[in-house]
């Protein structure tokens, strides 16, 4: 009976709040810094309609190419639009598109790769073959084809990325799963009588998703850069919608007389990239901690 009495405190300890607090407490400074930075950027994007002093698409020909300072915190562009407001609104688009472009393919990529890695044999060979074709396919050719069919814009980017980007995650998850599959705890789970589905989903996936999550953070940065880059060459977001890459492109003709049009949206990209990289580094360390690896 004394066991049960001593256990009562333990029974309560399983609460989600306590668990979350313990999780956050185990984060490195890098991870905390990255998380705070990204949270601030996301918050600014979320609150854009309340924070932004001007309509991001409103033109004001009395305030053309004003330098940063005064009412126009980041200055104005060649048609008198407020850069600060545009950078804020662009964050909404860049963050949400970057998020979707990264995590949607990650979900099915990891599932496909983990399943192929666990099953091996024919399933693995078929998935591997499809992945190799997808990897060999040049992305720019793909997007040009899609744009030719449905026209330029964010949808074309979504379609192209969703078709091709899952392969990286599938390869990572497949390789990790092949290692995990051979480990004793997978066998132990079978010995304890668990079903294959449960073993793959509960014990396999959490162990293979780590490297994909770490990779996703750099992929997130790359996807924002991709979106900006495609918008820069005119295949992505169309003006006048504010988007960081498109804004940089718009400012390129005025780079000598009005540096702020291109530079400040560029800074936003750099800041977001830094936050995501910090998170990626921190996550990598966090996962190796949990596996008892070197801190």
């Amino acid at each position, binding site marked *: 009976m004394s066991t049960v009495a001593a256990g009562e405190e333990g029974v309560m300890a399983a609460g989600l709040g306590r668990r979350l607090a313990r999780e956050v407490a185990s984060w490195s400074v890098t991870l905390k810094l990255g998380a705070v930075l990204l949270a601030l950027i996301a918050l600014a994007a979320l609150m854009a309609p309340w924070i932004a002093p001007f309509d991001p698409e409103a033109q004001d020909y009395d305030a053309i190419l004003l330098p940063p300072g005064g009412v126009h915190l980041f200055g104005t562009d060649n048609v008198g639009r407020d850069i600060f407001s545009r950078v804020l609104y662009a964050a909404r688009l860049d963050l949400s598109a970057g998020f979707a472009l990264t995590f949607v393919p990650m979900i099915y990529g990891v599932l496909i790769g983990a399943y192929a890695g666990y099953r091996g044999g024919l399933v693995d060979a078929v998935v591997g073959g499809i992945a190799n074709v997808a990897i060999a396919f040049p992305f720019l050719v793909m997007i040009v084809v899609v744009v030719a069919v449905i026209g330029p814009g964010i949808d074309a980017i979504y379609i192209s990325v969703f078709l091709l980007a899952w392969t990286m995650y599938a390869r990572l998850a497949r390789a990790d799963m092949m290692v995990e599959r051979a480990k004793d705890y997978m066998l132990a789970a*079978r010995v304890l009588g668990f079903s294959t589905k449960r073993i793959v989903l509960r014990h396999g996936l959490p162990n293979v998703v780590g490297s994909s999550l770490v990779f996703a953070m750099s992929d997130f940065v790359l996807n924002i850069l991709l979106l900006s880059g495609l918008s820069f060459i005119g295949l992505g977001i169309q003006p006048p919608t504010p988007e960081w890459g498109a804004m940089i492109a718009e400012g390129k003709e005025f780079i000598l007389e009005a540096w702020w049009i291109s530079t400040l949206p560029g800074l936003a990209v750099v800041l977001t990239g830094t936050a995501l990289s910090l998170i990626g580094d921190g996550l990598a360390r966090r996962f190796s901690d949990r596996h008892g690896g070197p801190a």
Partner: protein
Amino acid sequence: MNGASPLLEIEDLSVVFHTRSGPVLANDGVSLTLRAGETLGIVGESGSGKSVFCRAILGLAKGEVRARRMAFDGRDIAAMSRSEKQALRGRGIAMVFQSPMSSLDPVWTIGDQLVETVRHHKGLDRAGARRAAIALLDRVGIQSAARRLDDYPHQWSGGMLQRAVIALALAGEPRLMLADEPTTALDVTIQDQILALLTELQRETGMALVLVSHDLGVIAETVDRVAVMYAGRIVETASVRHLFERPAHPYTVGLLGSMVGAAGQGERLRPIPGQPPDLHHLGTGCAFAPRCSRAGDDCHRAVPRIDPAAAHDAACLFPMEAER
């Protein structure tokens, strides 16, 4: 032998791995019976097929498994459906592995894994399962179990982890526990504690225990009966006392002679000459014959089969003493 039906009956079990360089006979005609509550040691050097044997019983061996009969509690294991096999694992037969560090999932806490297992076997609610998990850890000798429950496996030492693995194995209240080299990865002081724990749990619960080890010393202090394996075959079965006092198979004699402590004071250890055989190229004869000083021509032609029901039997044409 009394009339009670045995808990585990294995007759003529063979496991073949089909490799690129040809078939490998990992288990060859293994027969074994185990009564409820009995403790059996399986001893043999690495590669002799001990682990494969354990996995074959659970239906988890990778190779091709054939057996004339494989029954647990009178029920044919080969004829079981997938869900019946899943129910057998954990509830009928549980297993403890060699390396406790890798037997637990690193991403879940010890508590998560115990709670999951208890709920799976007993269908308890979360709080009830947590209480049961704490009781299990308590029972395997983890101090202040309630506080340690939310630790991750990497926060525990090897000895503690092996206790947790044993707790997991106990969760389904198995009637047979297979312990595959449970102390090999642990240091010597911890080895004794884990063996004592297994013995104590075996007595308390009345479950049968199969202890697999390459170490005769470990076997001797834990079990009643021993099966000696060599090259995938059982070459001798006897009670621990008989095995030590009157070993019949020359290989057993060799094992005893090479064991620290069994050789008399001041005596030199006597290694067994030669190498273990290549399982790719096993002839029809006794696998030990090439290394055996007593082998005659007949030994290279045929192996005598062991009688699994006998109290003491050796698969040898020229056993050391004829007083079996």
